[in-house]
């Protein structure tokens, strides 16, 4: 109960890795997992033992074995190599979407929180965008042009931005009403300076936390889009594509779905764990809102 912990005087903490890990098992676990996956993605050409694009129809749908660790797909391509390269696509999509939607969301959120006139317009547009289910919006956007990695990323960013804008805006509004900011405004501090000094640092924690969730959701949406046939071009070895192409063979070649599916789930898991851990550390208030 809250009373008790408040009542106790805790000793000053000395930093030790073991303690840090013990205190933040989720962050540690998520970070280690994610780092491992990033390493796999970066060194994909050295890890994959064969060309992920190489078609060899003679060897189609071979089960996992010493020669094909994760089996082969309908074109006889090596699923292991494709999965390893797939880490690149998924992480790239996840990280790019997280980065860009954070930047865009931050900029818009600051604008909205700060300039009341902009707020009305931008927030109506954001409400409108939020009202459209994200995957629906994304496929609709993708069909505007031809599918490619870039357009997939843009199509995922757009529905994610409003979520970030809301978080940032809420922070800005709450900070604005703090007495010290009001006095700073009264004291004639320039807007930009005010933003940099007071608002930005406060908005950062929830932003980082939110962007990890955006990253995880982006990876799932990318896979979903590929699954629906509206994702990156089919020869690109994204996990979504491997699954989408494998799904018609699931009963005779389950490895084409289960292996990339597991990788996708683990990656999303790692990012989510990292996000949960960061949330608990950086922004306990957010814990309630998930």
């Amino acid at each position: 109960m809250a009373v008790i912990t408040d009542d106790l005087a805790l000793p000053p903490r000395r930093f030790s890795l073991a303690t840090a890990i013990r205190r933040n098992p989720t962050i540690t676990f998520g970070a280690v997992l994610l780092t491992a996956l990033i390493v796999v993605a970066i060194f994909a050409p050295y890890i994959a033992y064969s060309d992920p694009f190489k078609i060899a129809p003679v060897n189609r749908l071979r089960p996992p074995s010493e020669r094909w660790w994760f089996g082969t797909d309908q074109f006889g391509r090596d699923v292991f190599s494709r999965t390893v390269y797939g880490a690149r696509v998924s992480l790239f999509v996840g990280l790019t979407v997280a980065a860009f939607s954070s930047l865009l969301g931050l900029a818009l959120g600051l604008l909205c929180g700060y300039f009341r006139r902009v707020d009305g317009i931008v927030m109506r547009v954001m409400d409108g965008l939020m009202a459209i289910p994200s995957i629906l919006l994304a496929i609709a956007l993708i069909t505007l042009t031809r599918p490619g990695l870039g357009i997939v990323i843009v199509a995922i960013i757009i529905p994610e931005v409003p979520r970030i804008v809301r978080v940032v805006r809420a922070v800005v509004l709450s900070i604005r009403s703090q007495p010290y900011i009001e006095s700073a405004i009264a004291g004639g501090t320039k807007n930009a300076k005010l933003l940099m000094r007071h608002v930005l640092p406060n908005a950062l924690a929830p932003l980082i936390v939110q962007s990890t969730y955006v990253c995880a959701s982006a990876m799932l949406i990318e896979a979903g889009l590929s699954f629906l046939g509206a994702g990156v071009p089919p020869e690109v070895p994204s996990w979504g594509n491997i699954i989408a192409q494998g799904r018609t063979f699931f009963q005779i070649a389950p490895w084409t779905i289960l292996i990339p599916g597991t990788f996708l789930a683990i990656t999303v898991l790692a990012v989510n764990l990292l996000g949960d851990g960061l949330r608990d550390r950086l922004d306990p208030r957010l814990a309630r809102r998930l």
Partner: protein
Amino acid sequence: MLKRIFAGALALAIPFAPVQAQEKVLKAVMHADVRVIDPMWTTQTIANIHGMLVYDTLFGNDAQMKPQPQMVGKYDISPDKLTYTFTLRDGLKFGDGSPVTTKDVIASLQRWGKKDGVGIRLMSFVDKLEAVDDKTFRMVLKKPYGMVLESLGKTNSSVAVIMREKEAMTDPQQQVKESIGSGPFNFAKDQWVPGSKAVYVKNPHYVPRPGNEPPSSFAGTKFAGVDRIELIWISDPQTAMSALINGEIDFFEAPSIDFLPILEKAKGVKLMKTGTLDSTHGMIRLNHLQPPFDNPKARQAMYHLINQEDFLRAIVGNPAYYRVCHGLITCGSPLANDGGSAMLKDYNPKKALQLLKEAGYKGEPITVLQATDHVTITPATQVLIQAMREAGINVDAQAMDWGSVVSRRAKKDPPAQGGWNIFVTTTGGVGSANPVLHTWIGAACDKGLFGWPCDAKIEELRNAFAFAQTDEERKKIATELQTRAIEQVVYIPFGQWTVPLAYRADRIDGIVPNTGLAVLWNIKKK
């Protein structure tokens, strides 16, 4: 088991569940979803299947590909082969109960003659099409065209179905609004859920050919063997297969070849080939209007990139169901020949690039339209793109759904302005067994199909074929035609295959064989 216990418990709990008169329902999954109900307007096979249920045709080609009268009772050809007189069978009625008259027939033929390539060709030789009375009409030709009855009985792409005059007056560029024919079934439009289900109910006004002639492809007596047919659309072939094995459906037109071993083992399920000819024929189409493929040398260079086995393995897998075919006329058909086939047999990617360079190709991007959602075309295109890339060709693969490919391929602009260089498609093996019905072999320039090959000689040969009198003559012309078409590279074939249909032999029988098209009449439910 659990299911049965639950079901049993529920059956006991609800003794008043509505007991319907035992209506026989055939639940079938076809290769595509019924979206267009005008079989003249579109060339889609699924619209054709729909059309064959709802409409009747004047003639039907039998298993030997000889036209036999269907709606027509008797007919007469003048000795100069210029005047055809047809008399309809007695008592023919449309699904709404109105009688079929020569007015309806002539309007229908005229509409078809404006839309379908074969129909357009036929009509170009027709001088007069006139009614003699309500049941008799006359077709007068300018020249003794030899393919009149075959054309009327054609079953691939836009078919010469007979509609009510009201609908037949619809602009051929517009779809008809109602689908009412004189075929064995009525289309239940009110129960139609596009993208999911199309429902057909037995046509009470249908008059089958008398005498119970045994069915032979599209000839013979057709009848409605069930009260109701539901064409259910399941896009994932694996799901459809499981549904068949699980007994949720009775008939599955296009199982994935990879699953045939599972289907063969499944209890109650049987497989059946729909025809003696392979049903599908793969084609790589080059754009003759745009560089580099405006140059025949560049087009021919592409032959060296194609190893048909690679494509067929990727699409079909099991060699029992595919066939390498170094020709444009369906291999295994009477007119199949080896004219020009030597050019198709030299697989040599290095040579391909070298020849391309000699033809002036300097590494510009080649735009390939890449369908992402098609069961066979998607993997075939992927194999092609990979082969081109490995040969060192700069490929600009434009991924899009098949619907977009269909719309994009109609553009004649340069690739940079929304056009294209290459797309992959398939055509029916039955149609491509006949040089006239095989529209993709044509080279009618602007008026031809996408890719717009342009060669007067090819068109002359196709005409000549239609006027040929003897089988030898036909075979000779077909060989010449194929040689010329391969030289010109109207398209690059990558083999042919057939997909057997799967059905619940423990529940239905009477499937008409050798149609090359899934027709659902005559099927009875046990």
